């Protein structure tokens, strides 16, 4: 049997204008060879990368996404790369919840002088994505990614992610340093809640579902789903549609 041609992944890269895009140019000027897997979108700063862009790319079937910025402390805009880092952290959690290997998302730093480092990152990430195989965009994954996208677009998550850097450096109104571990735990649970609730809403968009049916659809225990159903009902996003036998069925409002 002959060796099959290795799978050629399609990787999307967000490169900041000042450091990583310049590093990619330097790789070219230096003729460092790397696999032709990467398609670059130039942005002014890695801080411009809305997490929704990354989820949009995966929902279109991109096999991997790279976000490359300036080294910490070197950002042309002072702090944009820290925001990129915090956003990617949330994205990794969401990709995991959505059943997409977070290893398909790559974040690192490349300076304008690091052509070799850039070429190495593309080589390594291409190999990693090749090992993971093509992204299989099932209907479930599409819906999961849609829920993840709604989560990163939600006010609460945007607020928590946006304030994280400021909070990690400062103090609260009582002048006490903020416990970042507790903050991260709060952020992680908020992200999970937001994701699951949006996932429920997507599931219950077409037809009324019982809590049991929802739980089966999401691979969760009915008890876990019930808490979210109650929260969504209180928020007016989910409503009681019918009662079949003993089972109330809910539908998205």
């Amino acid at each position: 049997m002959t060796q099959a041609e290795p799978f050629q992944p399609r990787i999307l890269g967000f490169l900041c204008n000042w450091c990583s895009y310049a590093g990619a140019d330097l790789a070219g000027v230096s003729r460092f060879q790397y696999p032709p897997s990467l398609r670059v979108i130039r942005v002014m700063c890695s801080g411009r990368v809305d997490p929704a862009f990354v989820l949009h790319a995966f929902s279109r079937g991109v096999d991997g996404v790279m976000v490359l910025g300036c080294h910490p402390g070197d950002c042309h805009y002072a702090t944009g790369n820290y925001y990129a880092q915090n956003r990617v952290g949330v994205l990794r959690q969401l990709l995991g919840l959505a059943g997409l290997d977070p290893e398909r998302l790559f974040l690192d730093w490349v300076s304008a002088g690091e052509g070799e480092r850039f070429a190495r990152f593309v080589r390594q990430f291409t190999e990693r994505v090749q090992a993971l195989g093509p992204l299989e965009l099932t209907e479930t994954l599409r819906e999961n990614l849609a829920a993840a996208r709604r989560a990163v677009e939600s006010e609460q998550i945007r607020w928590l992610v946006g304030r994280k850097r400021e909070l990690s450096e400062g103090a609260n109104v009582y002048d006490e340093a903020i416990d970042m571990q507790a903050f991260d735990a709060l952020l992680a649970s908020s992200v999970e809640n937001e994701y699951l609730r949006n996932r429920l809403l997507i599931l219950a968009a077409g037809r009324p579902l019982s809590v049991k049916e929802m739980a089966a659809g999401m691979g969760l225990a009915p008890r876990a789903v019930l808490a979210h159903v109650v929260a969504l009902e209180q928020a007016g996003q989910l409503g009681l549609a019918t009662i079949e036998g003993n089972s109330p069925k809910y539908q998205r409002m």
Partner: protein
Amino acid sequence: MAAFHAEEARVGVFICDCGSNIAGFLDVPQLMEYVQTLPHVAFAQENMYTCSDSGRAQIIKGIQEHGLNRVVVASCTPRTHEPLFRSTCQEAGLNPYLFEFVNIRDQCSWVHMEERQRGTEKAKDLLRMGVARAVLLEPQESTAVDVTRAALVIGGGIAGMTAALNLANRGFEVKLVERQPELGGLLRRVHTLYPSGALARPFIQEKIETVERHPNIQVLTGATVRSVRGFVGNYEAVVRQGEREYGFAVGVIVVAIGARELQPDGLYGYDGQRVITQGELEERLASGLDLGASGIRSVAMIQCAGARCPERPYCSRICCMTAIKNAMLLQEMDPAVRVYILYRDMLTLGAEYEALYHEARARGVLFIQYQPDSPPQVSAGQVSIHDARLGETLSIPTDLIVLSVPLVGREGAAELAQMLKVPVDEHGFFLEAHVKLRPLDFATDGIYLCGSAHWPSDIGESVSQAYGAASRASILLSRGQVEVEPIISMVDEEACIGCGLCETVCPYSAITLADTGAGRKARTVAASCKGCGVCGAGCPERAITMRHYQDQQILAQIDALMEAVA
């Protein structure tokens, strides 16, 4: 200008061969055929060099004859050529922001040289993404801001002083900051200059006096730059001198911090006594070294000591000439003294310098080549070297060994680079915007570079670079105004809930909450906004649009990428 609508877009695509840089590695005819199948593409053309006068004339002709209202150039990198093509569009009456760059050279043909078809497929994807974005581009008007007509020159060596004088003579106010207690830099320890043999001290002293006397120059010695804020034309620098701190408003900054000689600890038995560096030899010569009294009858100079090795792979460029100059000087002082130059490759570029090398040979300076895998061995009172030509190992008795060590980046180079947001390489040398097209500019507008801060340079080169950097800087200072890119944030006040998250994340205080009739709303301060987009990517209400990098433009690029697969 009339508003454009995507559906009326007529895109012209110009694909550059870049001689053979692109056409030699990608199938350009295939790209030409492909791009004409894309929606909205009304015209496509292949150019030998799109950036040449004739290439740019073709763009203008295309815009005028084919009614193009978007232009895409697929060639090199926007970091060097975007301004050129934008102004070409402008010449033809097209708003420069209706131009889109697709990089199929630096990030395609040059990095996939062995994969012609896959490289070509990638270029098709990039073209499709570029056209999709071009269709959604909107015209932008740039705004002009005033330039503070003053310069900050960092570093008071020959490069910094020359740049400062040049700017001051043009009538601009200059702040010259030197870390050491005196001006002069590396030249302070040099004894004579090559190729003339003239003494360095009177030369540098005269320069220092001219600088110190100049009414337009304020010299701050023993001073360091603590912080730099602002942007082209409007920088604010804080300089500390002793206990005092000064705040200076300047329009431009010249980086001329020079370099320093490597301290060769552990190399060839370096001890600063019998084994010294060329710099230390210069100091001894300047303070009247007496060869006879010191018992020096034989001197060996070892070239490339600590240079062109894995830790420092570069050639320091000035050491060969320095060694030849000092060897001849020692022989002149006492013709009985033998001087050996142990070298890997002698680099004496230029007619005058090559002549000096031949003169040194004629006068009896002995040149012996060594191979990097068998460097000279130093032991008490002698050096042994394997001469590959003779096939023998020679033992040379020596009273003094002089190491020609490379220049390395200044301490503090990385901190300064971080302050200015400009790049340094791993050796502490600053990186220019483009090696050929913008050798004295940084990619950050309004900041320039000269002398050995960039790369080991001799005096002539440092002075030429300083003239150049001063000229580049005075373009801005003379104009008095600078166009600021209109890539800024815009707030949709109807969607804004006044939460203030944007105000928190903005590093420039360029977005602030204002009381309006409809409650508190965020507003962009256009002159302060640098367009990073951190606020736009985080707005909970998606009420912020980044001009020229709109969500819909970026999403269209993503969709276009995956179109071919779907």
